[in-house]
């Protein structure tokens, strides 16, 4: 029996009807709301490709059932900045060319944005620890660390 849910995604309230309250948020966002990110990588919470913020916290949407997030505020990659008003980490990512295929970058960017909020000048070790459970198969790891460092410098004003 379909049940109605109302959720906030990237500052827009969305209402939808879903049969299965256990439907993971990933499928809600992609299939019900037609969003292109987050992405499906494992469905097991192991890789991070599906990461969104729930009330500011990086969360793996592939293992988060819809029923658990009713009154929460969801932010996706598209909600953290745009080409006209990019988040510093998005700008740094472009400068450092921190992606090849880019399929993994929801995990790195959403986790990186949260890290920079809680720790504006993270050490290299803090950066690596924050993103160590995010999978990348192209080998962009060094560039990812450089991008997060650059964004940190941009945010504290060392670099434009």
């Amino acid at each position, binding site marked *: 029996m379909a049940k109605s849910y109302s959720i906030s995604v990237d500052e827009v309230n969305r209402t939808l009807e879903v049969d*299965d309250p256990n439907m993971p948020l990933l499928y809600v966002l992609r299939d019900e709301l037609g969003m292109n990110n987050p992405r499906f990588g494992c469905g097991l919470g192991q890789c991070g490709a599906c990461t969104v913020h729930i009330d500011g916290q990086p969360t793996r949407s592939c293992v988060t059932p819809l029923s658990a997030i009713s009154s929460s505020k969801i932010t996706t990659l598209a909600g953290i900045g745009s080409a006209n008003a990019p988040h510093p980490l998005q700008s740094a990512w472009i400068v450092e060319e921190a992606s090849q295929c880019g399929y993994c970058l929801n995990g790195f960017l959403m986790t990186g944005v949260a890290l920079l909020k809680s720790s504006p000048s993270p050490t290299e070790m803090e950066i690596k620890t924050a993103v160590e459970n995010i999978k990348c198969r192209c080998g962009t790891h060094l560039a990812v660390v450089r991008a997060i460092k650059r964004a940190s410098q941009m945010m504290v004003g060392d670099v434009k």
Partner: protein
Amino acid sequence: MSDALTTRHTRRAFISGAGALVISLSTPASSSGQAPLTDGAMKRPSFTPSQLDSWLSIDEAGDVTCFFGKIDVAQGLDVAVRLIVAEELDVAFERIRVLMGNSATTINHGGATSDSGVREGGALMRITAAEARMLLLEMASRKLNSPVSSLRVSNGVVTVAADPSRAISYAELIGGRYFNAQLHWNKKFGRDLEVSGTAKPKPPSEYKIVGTPTVRTDISPKVMGKFEYVSDVRLPGMLHGRMVRPSIAGAVPVNVDESSLKEIAGARVVWIKNFLGVVAEKEWDAVRAAEALKVTWSDSNPGFPPQEKLHDHIRSSKVVKREYTSNVGSVEAAIKEAQAQKLRVVEAEYEWPFQSHASLGPACAVANATKDHVTIYTASQKPYDARIGIAELLGREMRDVTTIWIAGSGSYGRNDAGDCSADAAVLSNAVGKPVRVQYSRAEATAWDPKGSASIQRVRAAFDESGKVVAYDFMTKGFSLRDMPPWERKAANTLAGHLLGFKLEPIQAFGIPNDSYRFQHKRIGWETIPPLLDRASPLRTAHLRATASPMCHFASEQFTDELALVAQSDPVRFRLQYLTDPRDHELLKQTAEKFGWDDRIGPNPGQGGRELMRGRGVAVAQKEGTCVAVFVEVEVSKSTGRVRPVRYTVGHDCGLIINPRGLQQVLECQTVWATSRALCEEVTFDANMVTSRDWTTYPTIDMNLVPEKIDFVLINRPELPAAGAGEHAARVVAAALANAVFDATAVRIRSAPLSPERVKTALGRV
């Protein structure tokens, strides 16, 4: 070049400038008086490789579209193609776009394979762009009534050098029309395709655009969440499909209880012969249905050998095919002679595991099979071949199938994408609606085609002077093309296997080129039968750099073993036997940048330490690209963990098109190859592959990446631009293993150099 029109333009500036040029069109036509009012054809000529328009077009605004017959596996290949075409045509980089991999609009030049994107695809676009420029200059000559030799081009505007006010743009010359010009075509498709024209491409000495460090343009849409992957294709009325696979390899469905899906609205079963899948309107429902479906499977006993006996199985297996790729002098006699004379003969054997592509995103494809036509949106590296294979699979004519390549998650060879597009095609054909299939994690890891497991046996003999005189290398393993990687046969996909198409495995292993000169040298390979011939989760196909990582893991470790026997430094020893001056120069320059000092034997003083440091090197040359990889590692005595501290990667691929892109590609592939060397090994039991996710198939993470990677990039404009997509990846494992020996004085001849394996090896001494 002082004319404002010849400097860089925004689109608006260019168009407004062009407006002023209309005046020049009113000048009389050439002296022959025969020049048509407009050049070019209004009607599109036939879509064949011999037509220039099949490769390149210029629109009314003067923007250039390249129709590229390969595809970019996320290496930034489009940037290189744009630089090449910008250079030959003298059009700004920003005004060129590259379309790839659509079987209806781009010619089959083989898709992505063997890092041939720049080497073959770029070379072809250079020829076609040069031809277009020549024809445009001929048109301009007639229009401007001035000989070709008097003309100059800048950003798509042709001017008379002596009088820049006489000018005409490419847009005016041909914009929106067709060249209708013939190229010579060798009548082949795929990688064998060649075309040539009459124009001579620019000499590299005149290059102004090629060689400019250029940033990729796909990162911005990716970080803004605007980039559309194949998994984002949504068609009206589209269903979601999932495959249902057995828990024991080789088992096939004998009974399917569709009533087990009654709780899931709209879910239905597609069962054809041994092919079993489900479709539903919502993706989550397809996921649930695939799990919920009650299936009775046939008995199957694939009898996979115990994992720890895999290499014994390879040793004892019958040889299906043996081939020697090099056989100089008489190796057997020379080794026997050395043994008889009690001279040094060295032997070693190495092991390499099955490895998975384990692409980050499980494969996804969308198929729309109607009565008359089938369209497949696929991330396969071989979209043109997939068209042929899917036509056979569905019993359609090839002309009734279109494949459209759209980027997927990074792929490095024949991963699961080829199987997924075939599955989507069968499902859509069965239900008569568009079907999107995205595989599960387990399908991407446990069911993708595997990189072959193998052993390598190497022998060498020294003479009285301590020189290596005989070298004998044999690799033995599962064919790299047990399932041919091209998808141009129905049987080259899991769906084809399940639907009973006749298997046509190819026996091939192949050996990378060997860079060293020895008086007697024999190099060969042997293949063995597959463990399970049909629908096997251990079927083998191409994984990036194919035979190279395992062969060089052996050969370049063995080079170090020989150096030690010869009491020589590993770099010095290599220089003694390398023949190509390019290899010499690269090795020397990279050694210097790395800070290599001449030393014999393992790093002294490491024995008592918990963290032992060592250095290693490995080199190779193939298809015009030379690499030298140096690495410093840290090995933990207590845990066996190997951590690369830093790399210096030397690379000479002839002419460098985009140094910035080259560095990115090398950095990423070095990390990627580190993962294969240190972490990756497909596990299995008697019945099935047990590597199913990121826990059971560990790959590299932040804790194992090096602190830095330095580069030595040698640019040789006098040589053709060769490939860069996988050459460094070929020798990383060997360099790491050599560094582990340097650190620990223990030679580890089995990959991966996982903590367990290294710890066990250290405990043995």
